[in-house]
């Protein structure tokens, strides 16, 4: 290898963007939305957008833990459904019930995550199968509980988190509670993954579980924790979704794939070892921006589906390309 080669490589590496491309994609989409519809730049426009994107962003922030650990969590959509259905059954129109129903739902989520994690790490069932089984089970439970149709309403105290906009807030005028929840959960999960020893172990386990095990990493415990975090994020997303739009018996359908897609758009590597929480959340916002933009353009549904699919492939390809070029 000559010195010239080395310099060329150095130069190329130097030109690589240090910023994850998902932020550019997101910025471009937001700009396109704003050009298409100037009202989007008014607080009510972008705040509604953020409020709507919050559940998926939280879900993606949880999902990226499992993806970094080298797995998938397909059970989150059905856990959202179970959270909404279960909450409506338990609160039974009693506004005061919210205060014990939410902790109970979080506990339920923790148990689901624990079971997922143990099945994957102790019984060694591939996570795709383990969480698919959990998805079917939870959907069945939600159906059994509700009998196939919603049996009650969610009280306003419960819907507060997903529905209410705080008014007369300085600077932005309106501020959705869901956005505050998103910022809170996002900060927490970002710090946990990128500022603690646990986050480093998680990446090590996903990158090379054998090496991590030999290096003394408690692989099972790290993995189980990732699944518990993902399930908890699904419960929070469920609380927001139920709050946003009320009870329905298939509210979570399809969210598992959206969460995985969001994480991948954010540059997370399927099969583990790489991924960040803020980028996964940006991936979720990107996905929502695509939906919103296509709504605003008013294209017929089939055209929208085609465009949406192509944008998704392009976004993921871009994320992958950048990773390959970076050689990391």
């Amino acid at each position, binding site marked *: 290898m000559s010195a010239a080669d080395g310099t060329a490589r150095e130069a190329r590496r130097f030109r690589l963007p240090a910023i994850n491309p998902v932020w550019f994609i997101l910025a471009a989409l937001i700009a396109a939305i704003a050009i298409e519809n100037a009202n989007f730049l008014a607080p009510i426009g972008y705040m509604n957008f953020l409020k709507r994107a919050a559940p998926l962003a939280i879900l993606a922030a949880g999902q990226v833990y499992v993806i970094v650990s080298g797995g998938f969590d397909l059970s989150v959509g059905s856990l959202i459904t179970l959270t909404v259905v279960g909450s409506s059954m338990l609160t039974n129109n009693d506004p005061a019930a919210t205060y014990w129903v939410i902790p109970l739902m979080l506990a339920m989520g923790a148990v689901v995550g624990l079971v997922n994690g143990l099945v994957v790490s102790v019984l060694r069932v591939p996570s795709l199968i383990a969480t698919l089984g959990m998805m079917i089970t939870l959907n069945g439970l939600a159906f059994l509980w509700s009998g196939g149709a919603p049996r009650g309403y969610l009280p306003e105290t419960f819907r507060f988190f997903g*529905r209410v906009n705080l008014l007369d807030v300085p600077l932005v005028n309106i501020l959705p509670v869901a956005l505050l929840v998103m910022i809170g959960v996002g900060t927490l999960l970002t710090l946990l993954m990128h500022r603690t020893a646990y986050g480093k172990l998680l990446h090590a386990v996903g990158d090379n579980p054998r090496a991590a095990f030999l290096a003394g990493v408690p692989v099972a415990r790290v993995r189980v924790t990732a699944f518990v975090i993902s399930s908890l994020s699904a419960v929070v997303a469920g609380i927001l979704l139920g709050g946003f739009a*009320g009870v*329905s018996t298939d509210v979570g359908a399809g969210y598992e794939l959206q969460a995985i897609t969001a994480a991948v758009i954010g540059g997370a590597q399927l099969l583990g070892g790489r991924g960040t929480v803020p980028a996964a959340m940006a991936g979720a916002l990107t996905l929502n921006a695509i939906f919103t933009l296509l*709504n605003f353009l008013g294209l017929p549904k089939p055209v929208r589906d085609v465009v949406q699919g192509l944008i998704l492939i392009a976004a993921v390809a871009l994320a992958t390309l950048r990773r390959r070029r970076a050689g990391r």
Partner: protein
Amino acid sequence: MLRGFMTLVGALSLALATTAVSAQNFDDPDEFAKQREQLEMTPNGPEGQPWLQYLGEDMADTSSHAKDGPYTFCFSNAGVNNPWRVVGFTNMQAEVEMHDEIENFVHVDAEGSDDKQIADIEDLLAGGECDVLIVSPNTTAALTPAVERACEQLPVIVFDRGVNTDCPVTFIHPIGGYAFGIEAAEFIADNVDPGANVLMLRILPGVDVLETRYSAGKRIFDEAGLNVVGAEFTDGDNAKTKSIVEDYLQRGQIDAVWMDAGATAVAAIEAFEDNGLEVPPFNGEDQQDFLQKWRDLGMTAIAPTYPTFQWRTPIIAALSVMKGEEVPGPEWVLPQPAIDGDNLADYINESMPPLHYAMCGCEEMPGYPERWGGRD
């Protein structure tokens, strides 16, 4: 306007003539006109019991099917996979219990699959225990041969969706999809100014009863000179519905909302509420959550129905067939009442679940309200 209508009819028939091979036509001007007429007709039969009423005079002779009881009734059901069918099937079970002559009621659930339903019907026929077969077909074309085979063995009653054969004793159904679309759209057209912006929300494409609701609604709006700003598919999803309406509100004013089904009506209304806007004229359906929201907000609204009381009628018809009494046929067209501002209070029952269909005709039945998920 009449001339415009006639031109439209002419253009449509021409369009049809050129595509004569197209299997199903969801925008049939003749059927539209027929259902519009039926909405105005006074039904025959006992007042206050719409599940026993019928439009038109044609009757089917069933004397050849007369038989001594007790009876085994068999029911091949397309599915119990949505709240409408849950309420309907509960009605049917309660109806069966009201008649001691029915010794056995065999129910097979096709879980939304044509193949399973065809196999179900074959199994029921092979079992040889059924005195009468009631079928709620999953899809029209696929189930026709199976129903034809059943007709050779025993009396068959079809309800809800139809089949392409006249071999069943009777086909029980409310007026139809066009009527739903007409009632909703005419109400809206009467309550907004010409040129008003109407948003049409649909569940999904390709389902006959929903397509006809839409084509009828669109036709009325076009006739009335209203501006349909969009027709969007919601997949019956609350969050998606609310998002779509919010997006439209950001882009401009919406003066009315038309929906092909009511399950997500409350989410659509909330989009107006949460954005601090007055809720415009709306149509929903007869679900409790919509009716209560309508009352609470004092909305200008209407709830056309696809009444679940029709699930009682096949049992009643089957009993008549067993006794050799004549029944309305070859089609038993049930009335299709709408809930409006005048009778709204009669249909609200806060103890019932949100998606309970108020036009169930079930209030006097055994086990009401718990059986339908209500609180005592």
